[in-house]
């Protein structure tokens, strides 16, 4: 049975988080999602600092990053991740409403694995999230050291 790995979701918009979780829920991936509201929290989680000091060891299988967040933005988180040897290999997907070329360029320059623009159409959004979730959290073999969560429970 395929194992489900954990997903880190960083997004400051509560509504967007709810929609993303609802989409992930379609494919039973919602249980394994850790949600943070800004870049600082994301870094705390990744570096096991602050309130995440005592969390379970291991990296998420994939990180979904919004760009526009307070305190520390998505691009900065991405940069810090790529600078840190132990975090460099975690796949990162920008999941953002920005279609600006500058954001695209900067993200790819920093080494992002994928850049997905949140579509207005929710069905499209669900499809995109499903593809992402299924690929990164289930199919893709993450780098060693990632947290292995539960077994995938199929919906009856």
């Amino acid at each position, binding site marked *: 049975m395929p194992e489900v790995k954990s997903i880190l979701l960083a997004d400051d918009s509560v*509504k967007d988080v709810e*929609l993303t979780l609802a989409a992930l829920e379609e494919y039973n991936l919602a249980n394994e999602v850790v949600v943070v509201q800004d870049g600082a929290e994301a870094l705390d989680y990744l570096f096991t600092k602050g309130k995440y000091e005592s969390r379970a060891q291991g990296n998420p299988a994939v990180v979904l990053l919004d760009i526009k967040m307070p305190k520390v933005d998505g691009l900065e988180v991405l940069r810090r991740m790529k600078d840190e040897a132990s975090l460099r290999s975690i796949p990162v997907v920008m999941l953002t*409403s920005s279609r600006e070329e500058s954001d695209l360029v900067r993200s790819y320059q920093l080494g992002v694995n994928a850049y997905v623009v949140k579509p*207005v*159409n*929710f069905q499209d959004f*669900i499809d995109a999230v499903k593809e992402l979730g299924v690929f990164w959290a289930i199919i893709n073999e993450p780098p060693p050291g990632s947290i292995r969560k539960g077994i995938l429970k199929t919906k009856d």
Partner: protein
Amino acid sequence: MLQAGLPTQKRDLEQKIWLGFGLALLLLGVIGAFSYRSTVQFLETSEAAVKSRETLEEMSKLLIDLLNAETGQRGYILTGEARYLEPYYTAVNEIDRHRKSLRGLLRGDVRQQERLNALESLVSQRLDDLRQRVRLRQEKGFEVAASAVRQGQEKELMDEIRRSLGEMEGEGYVLLERRNQATREDATRTLVVIVAGGLLALFLIPLAAILIKRDIANRRLLEEELRKRNSLVESINKELEAFSYSVSHDLRSPLRHIDGFTQLLQKGIGSSLEPKNLRYLNIISDSVKQMGRLIDDLLVFSRMGRNEMQKTVVDMGRMVNDVINEMKPDVQGRNVIWNVMKLPEIKGDPGMLKLVWANLIGNAIKYTKLKAEAQIEIGTMNGKADEIVFFVRDNGAGFDMQYVEKLFGVFQRLHSAEEFEGTGIGLANVKRIILRHGGRAWAQGKVNEGASIFFSLPTGC
């Protein structure tokens, strides 16, 4: 607005400058002409003076030789010795030479020629006398010759010759003096012209310089003005860019939420809803999608107006093929006949031109969707001398020609959203792009029979 003050000012100043230079050139020409004439006259006068001197010399020499001949003759008559005849014969030859020389020198002067004729006959007569006396001495001896001398009119003849020569000399001097006087006057006139003209030119040149300087200062001011306005435009553009980014970004988020939660609502309670309530939820969803498209189109439209235009060679044929291929999924299952002519290469912005084709071909596909067989024609046709005209023709819904003006308007539509979806920005974009390339866009159509959209692009961008 910026250019309003420029033309008349410019023309005035330019006119003055041309006038100044024209006058200076004219003066130069006048001075040059006068100087030339004066110089030529000096040269002529010099030559005339030389000629005069020569003439006078010849006349003196003639007289001297005449006296020499007489002396020789006297010597011979007295002594009968042949050696006295040598100077006589020499003198006679010389006299002949002088005669001929004078004839040449006095050519052209009628009066002098007449006097020369008179002189010549006198001289001939004298020479005849001398010759005759010599012969007498040779043949008849001293007494006969001497008495002939005593009886002759020698003195009177010589006096007449002297007088004639004197007259000719006098005439020569008078002519020379007259010539000198004329030359002096001309030289004075020329000097005046040179000085006056020179002063005027000296005055005009600084004047022209001042005017030019003023003109340059003016232009610098205008350049500065232009630069300021340009930088203002640039900063406005940047603001607009930031504005439209923020607008599109910030408007999309709530849209996404509306759509998302509506869908979730549908999923949640959809099964228990009456059809009409379900329909309400669908309408909300559709409206959201429509708004999303509007925002996207607006963004593209504003970007098209502000971006830098590239100017490269574009293979229109290949571009059209690419667009048709990209749109293949949209016509799957439909019966569409494509008729694409060979299209030339032109100079333009590839990104923008691709948008034009995408819009026009997309429209053709959209508006023919109700026809059993859609016919879409793409090609070129003859236009004005320096432009190429492209067209996209379809046999679809067409439009009423009385609304043709609205066709290219922003957000203007001639069909309802239910009949054919769209935002009404497509053709406005097309027109904007074509205008930026320096071309024109127009259309023809007939309701239910189809529409033809034309656009022209200049050949020598």
